[in-house]
């Protein structure tokens, strides 16, 4: 039997309990409870305004904690902010590179901020550049690099001081598909080496690649688990019907076919393990009332819709 590294039963890398945050009158987080295990890739998934960026700012100590408790790598954010900073690597959504400096110079800057200097800095810089396949671009000015390469330099900066936890805010933003694949390969390698990776995203397909996902909506964690377990909660099959009269369709399904459904805008969604076999009878009964009927396995978007009752956008 092979026990994978890192151990999933090790102490949590991040613990949030009862975290609330306000911007003036607006409550951005309304009591978030969360645990992230060491060495996993954890995605905070949510639409714009769900509170994920606020949570990221709190975890990265960019804004002070107002209410609740957050611990990162065993260090209390409210008590020892600098201690937390030593343990985390951060990749912001907006690039933090100085475009007028070379890759090497940017990394040297980051090293100085984290107390690395001299031979130790040079050796560590060579390691991360090699690891992220940036060695041949080290002399290039950052303004000449592609979006994907810049993101890799950001990762190199973030992992320079060997953080226990990597925090990434919307890391795929602005990347083309091949650069996204490269990014995820790097993240997976980090997690394999024991670094906890926490990222925020509004991209469902990105969250699907994480080990665990917490879906946020209106400042709350509405559901949390592995992508597979979240989908499994909705069963094996999902029928989605688009209609100009969704209320009428829902009534027919309930009264005549005995099927419970959920209405989201112009869509009616029916969850059933027998979804594929139900489609012909639904199509026959609805006739012209249905503009389209599709059947498939539920995705994370369906999980979001099932839990919140509104679309993910």
């Amino acid at each position, binding site marked *: 039997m092979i026990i*994978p590294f890192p151990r999933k039963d090790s102490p949590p890398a991040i613990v949030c309990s009862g975290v609330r945050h306000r911007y003036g009158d607006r409550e951005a987080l309304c009591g978030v409870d969360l645990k992230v295990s060491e060495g996993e890739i954890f995605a905070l998934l949510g639409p714009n305004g769900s509170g994920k960026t606020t949570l990221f700012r709190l975890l990265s100590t960019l804004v002070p904690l107002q209410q609740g408790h957050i611990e990162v790598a065993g260090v209390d954010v409210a008590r020892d902010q600098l201690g937390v900073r030593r343990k985390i690597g951060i990749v912001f959504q907006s690039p933090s590179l100085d475009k007028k400096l070379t890759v090497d110079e940017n990394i040297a800057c980051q090293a100085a*901020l984290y107390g690395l200097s001299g031979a130790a800095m040079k050796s560590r810089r060579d390691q991360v550049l090699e690891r992220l396949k940036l060695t041949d671009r080290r002399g290039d000015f950052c303004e000449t690099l592609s979006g994907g390469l810049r993101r890799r330099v950001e990762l190199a900066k973030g992992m320079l001081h*060997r953080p226990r936890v990597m925090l990434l805010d919307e890391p795929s933003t602005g990347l083309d598909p091949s650069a996204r694949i490269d990014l995820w390969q790097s993240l997976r390698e980090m997690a394999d080496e024991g670094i906890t990776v926490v990222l925020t995203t509004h991209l469902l397909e990105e969250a699907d690649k994480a080990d665990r996902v917490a879906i946020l909506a209106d400042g709350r964690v509405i559901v949390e688990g592995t992508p597979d377990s979240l989908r499994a909660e909705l069963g094996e099959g999902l029928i989605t019907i688009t209609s100009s009269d969704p209320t009428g369709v829902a009534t027919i399904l309930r009264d005549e076919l005995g099927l419970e459904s959920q209405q989201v805008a112009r869509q009616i969604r029916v969850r059933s393990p027998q979804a594929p076999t139900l489609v012909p009878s639904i199509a026959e009964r609805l006739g012209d009332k249905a503009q389209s009927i599709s059947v498939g396995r539920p995705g994370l978007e369906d999980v979001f819709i099932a839990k919140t009752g509104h679309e993910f956008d």
Partner: protein
Amino acid sequence: MSVMTPQPPASSPAIADQPAADSGIGGALPSGLGAAWMLAKREWVRFFRQRNRVISAVVQPLLFWLLFGTGLQGAFVGAGDQTFLEHFLPGTIALIVLFTAIFATISVIEDRREGFMQAVLVAPVGRWPVLAGKVLGGSAIAWVQAVLFLGLVYLFGAAPFSLSVIGVLVLLAVIAVSMCSLGMIVAWPMDSTQGFHAIMMLGLMPMWLLSGTFFPVPAFVGSISWGQMFLGGLMRANPLTYPIVELRRLLYPAIDFGATGFAPAPAICWAVSLGFMVFTTAVAWRLMRGSRRADLLS
């Protein structure tokens, strides 16, 4: 059954990347001094990579000096029969320092907009290295530019060379730090460079103009108009007036400026100059340390 105990995946020792021990970053403590030095060095590198900044910081004051100095030469006689070219020289040097310091501190706004500042603000070094790096880096650039200009001044005989040059060099450093700190006070809460330019035109340029650089501080002797009285009061209240008076005295040590106009004693000039430097730096520090509202500006 193969392996029973947790093990990291096989990887080359050269690129192994295990998390840091609990002690922090591989045992090394973050050094605020190292961070400040690096940020100052960055200012320097960035400045010389943007040639338009180098050129504008020297050429514009030089043009001002030559154009105004030559144009107003016949209409002005200063203390000790100084021509306007000579009278305007300390102001030109101050302008070089002012322009360079302003452009160095304006980069705070760009750093924030471009995201670089976010990474600095979440580093485990606190705030003071950011201020120290910006102020010392910007001041060093301003100082070197002013000194280069001063070298030309002595080379072409526009001012007599003497040992007082040591005082000039120290005073220029004091002015440079004051101006950079003042620039930080203006730039830190700003979210746009346009806002900075507005403050510069409304506040910093008048401050320079009213420091005795362009025209002498009116002396309160004899019968003077209310306007001159007001202007004289304003110029005496301007803390930049005092280092300019001292700079003028150090550049032309043979002339007695006190005989014809406002020229407080060197001790007063130095005290005000140093006090202003300490004050602006303290205010900038307090501003950066205080509200975190500016951290989230982007």
